[in-house]
C-alpha cells in the first residue's frame, strides 16, 4: 500500500510541477506551435522551426512591447489524437490566441473542430489536403495544396506536347490527391494517361516500380512522394535505372525535390521538371535576402526548403494580425484580417489568402533541376501567376 501511495504521490508532484504559471498580462500574445519535432518528419520540421525562429528574430522589433510567447508542442508524427490533446491543452490551459504548425493533414484535421469550438484561429503551415479548409471557418493555410501544384503541372505538361504520361504516387491521402490533380489537369489539356501506380507508404525500394514504368516507355512520368528520404530514394532510382536515357521525362510535384535534400541526390540527369512554390535558388531579391539571412544564422551549408518558407510566411501572417490588433487578439477580427492578407515580401514571391476559401493563393513555378556551379538547384523557368487551389471549384460542396 505504501508503494501505491508513493507512486501516486510522485505522479501528483510531477503533474503539479507542470501546472500553468500565472495568467498572462494583457500584451502577451500566446501562439501554440504543434509540430512533429521528433518522429518521421523531424528533418522537415527542423527546417520549419528554424524559419520560425529566424522570422521572430528578424521582426521582433516590430511588435514593440507586445510580448510574443511561442509554446511549442511535439505531436511526434502523424498522431492526430496527440495533436488534438496538445491543441486542447494549449487552448484550455495555456490559453493560446492562435494555433499554428501542423505538418500532417490528419493532425490538422483532428484539431480543426477545436478551432471552431474554442474560436481560436489556426494557421496551417504545411498540411496540404484541400478538403481540410472546410472543416472549420477558423483555418487559414499559408503553404499549398496538392491540387495547387499538380493540377497546373498536368496542364503545363500537356501544353509542352507530352502525349502519354504515367503516374506514380505514394499510396496515401496526399498521393491520391496529387494523382487525381495531375490526371485532371493533364487529360483536360489533351494528354493521355497510360498507367498509374500507387507505391506503398513504407517502401524501401522504388526501383521495381520505376523498372516497370521504364518497360512501358511513356513520354513522361509524373511522381509524387513525401519529401525527405523518399524523395532522395526516388531520384536515385530514377538515375540508377537510366529512365532519362530511355526517354522517360520525370515531372514531379515540388515535394520530390526539397532544396535541402538536393545535395544528397547524386548525379540526377538533367531535364527533371517540377512544379513548386519555392526554390532556394530563386533570384528574386526577397529570396536572396532570405537565403542570406538563413545562411548567416544556420551556416553556409544550410539551405532553406519550401517547408521553411511555409513556416516563415505563417509567422508573417501571425505578426500581421498581432500588429494590426496591437496584441489584443480577437478571433473573428483575426480571421477578418487574415482573409485577403497579402504579402509581397515572401521569399516565394507574392502570396495572399483567398478571402473566400481562406486558402493560399500564390505563384507556382515550373523549375528545372539543374547543376549550377556544381550544385543541384531548382531553377525557375516559368511562372504561373497567382494560382488558386482548383479543388473547391472542381469539388463544390
Amino acid at each position: 500500500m505504501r508503494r501505491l501511495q508513493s507512486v501516486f504521490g510522485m505522479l501528483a508532484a510531477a503533474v503539479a510541477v507542470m501546472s500553468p504559471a500565472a495568467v498572462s498580462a494583457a500584451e502577451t500574445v500566446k501562439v501554440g506551435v504543434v509540430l512533429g519535432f521528433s518522429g518521421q518528419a523531424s528533418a522537415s520540421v527542423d527546417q520549419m522551426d528554424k524559419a520560425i525562429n529566424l522570422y521572430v528574430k528578424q521582426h521582433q522589433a516590430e511588435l514593440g512591447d507586445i510580448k510574443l510567447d511561442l509554446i511549442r508542442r511535439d505531436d511526434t508524427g502523424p498522431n492526430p489524437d496527440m495533436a488534438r490533446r496538445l491543441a486542447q491543452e494549449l487552448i484550455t490551459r495555456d490559453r493560446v490566441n492562435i494555433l499554428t504548425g501542423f505538418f500532417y493533414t490528419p493532425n490538422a484535421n483532428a484539431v480543426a473542430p477545436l478551432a471552431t469550438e474554442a474560436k481560436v484561429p489556426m494557421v496551417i503551415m504545411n498540411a496540404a489536403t484541400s478538403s481540410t479548409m472546410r472543416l472549420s471557418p477558423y483555418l487559414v493555410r499559408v503553404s499549398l495544396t496538392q491540387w495547387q501544384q499538380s493540377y497546373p503541372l498536368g496542364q503545363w505538361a500537356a501544353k509542352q506536347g507530352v502525349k502519354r504520361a504515367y503516374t506514380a504516387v505514394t499510396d496515401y491521402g496526399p498521393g491520391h490527391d496529387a494523382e487525381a490533380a495531375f490526371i485532371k489537369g493533364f487529360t483536360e489539356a489533351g494528354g493521355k494517361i497510360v498507367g498509374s501506380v500507387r507505391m506503398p507508404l513504407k517502401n524501401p525500394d522504388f526501383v521495381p516500380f520505376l523498372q516497370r514504368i521504364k518497360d512501358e516507355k511513356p513520354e513522361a512520368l509524373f511522381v509524387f512522394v513525401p519529401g525527405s528520404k523518399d524523395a532522395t530514394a526516388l531520384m536515385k532510382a530514377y538515375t540508377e535505372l537510366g529512365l532519362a536515357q530511355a526517354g522517360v521525362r520525370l515531372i514531379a510535384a515540388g515535394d520530390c525535390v526539397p532544396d535541402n535534400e538536393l545535395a544528397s541526390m547524386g548525379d540526377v540527369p538533367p531535364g527533371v521538371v517540377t512544379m513548386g512554390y519555392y526554390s532556394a535558388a530563386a533570384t528574386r531579391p526577397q529570396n536572396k535576402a532570405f537565403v542570406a539571412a538563413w545562411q548567416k544564422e544556420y551556416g553556409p551549408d544550410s539551405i532553406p526548403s519550401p517547408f521553411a518558407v511555409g513556416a516563415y510566411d505563417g509567422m508573417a501572417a501571425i505578426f500581421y494580425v498581432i500588429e494590426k490588433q496591437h496584441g489584443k487578439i480577437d478571433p473573428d477580427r483575426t480571421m477578418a484580417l487574415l482573409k485577403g492578407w497579402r504579402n509581397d515580401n515572401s521569399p516565394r514571391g507574392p502570396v495572399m489568402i483567398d478571402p473566400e476559401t481562406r486558402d493560399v493563393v500564390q505563384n507556382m513555378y515550373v523549375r528545372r533541376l539543374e547543376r549550377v556551379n556544381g550544385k543541384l538547384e531548382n531553377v525557375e523557368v516559368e511562372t504561373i501567376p497567382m494560382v488558386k487551389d482548383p479543388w473547391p471549384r472542381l469539388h463544390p460542396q
Partner: protein
Amino acid sequence: MFVYRSAATISPVDYMVCSHRLRWPELLPWVAIIAAYFAFPSYLALGAQVMIMVLFALSLDLVLGYAGIVTLGHAAFFGVGAYTAGILAVHGWEEAITALPVAAAVAGAVGLVTGYIILRTRGLTLLMLTLAVASMLGEAANKANWLTGGADGLQGITLRPLLGVFHFDLFGRTAFVYCALVLFAGWVFVRRLVHAPFGRSLTGIRENAARMHAIGAPVRQRQIIVYTIAAALAGVAGALEAQTTQFVGLNVLSFDLSGAVLIMLIFGGVGRLYGAFVGAPLYMVAQDALSRLDPEYWFFWVGLLLVVTVMFARGGILGVADLLRRKVMR
C-alpha cells in the same frame, strides 16, 4: 504469484478462499482519479488519454501478463475498435455508449479469428505473426480510403451528448468522467476474470503450459478465449479514443502504438493487474514532460529509461516496490 506471508494465523483454506477480497490499496487508483479531476482541471484531456491507455494496457496485461503471450501487435484491436466506433458515428450512430459494445464485438471477433490462427505458434514466430496482423490491418485501413479516410484520417465524427445531457466539452470534463467510468467497469471485469479459475489457469499456462496440458486444461482454447477477451477490451479502449478525440488516424493501428503500450505495461509491472495503472500514467507523464523539456531528443531519455528499467528494475515499478517491501519486512 500470490505470496502470503502474513498468513500464519489463519488456515490456508480460509486464506485462499478470501484471496480475491478487495484490499484497500486497490482503491487508490480511483481515489487518485477522483482527486485528479478536482485538482488538475486543466489536465483532464491528458487524464482521459491516460485512462484510455490504462484500459488498453490492462487488456494487454491479460494477454501478456497472465497468459504469457508476447505480442507486438496489440494495437490491431485498439485500432479496430477505434475505427468501428468512428465509422459508426460518421454514419449516424451518434450515441457513444451503445457504440462501445459494438466496437468490443468487432475487435473481439478479429481477436478470435487471428488468435485461432496464430496461437498455435510460440516465441519469435508468434511475435512476428502478431506484428503481421497489425501491419496488415494498418495497410488495409490506409487502402480503404472510402471507409476510413486513409492517411488523412476519419473526419466528421459527431456524437450526441452522453445520456442526452453531457456534451463532450472543450475542457475534457465529460471525456474524463466517461473514460473513468468505462475504465472502472473494465477494471471490475478484469479483476473478476483474473481472480476466477479462468484467470488462475492462465497464470498456470504462463508458468507451465506442459503441466496445464497434463491436468487436462484445454490450453489453446483458453489462450484463444483470453486473446479474444483482451481484443474486445482493447477495442473498447480504441472506441473511447475515437469518441473522445472525435477523429481516427492510421496511428491507432501502428507498430508505435503496440510498442508504446507494451512499454507502459512492462514499465509498470506485468501480470499484476495494477501494472497498467502505474505504468501508463508514469510513461505518459514522463513522455509529456520530457517532450516539453527536449522536443527533439526526448525519446533518447525514454530509451535510457527503458534500458535502466530492464537492467535494474525487472518486474517494473511494482516489481521493484514488491522487492523493497519484502526486504524491509525481512
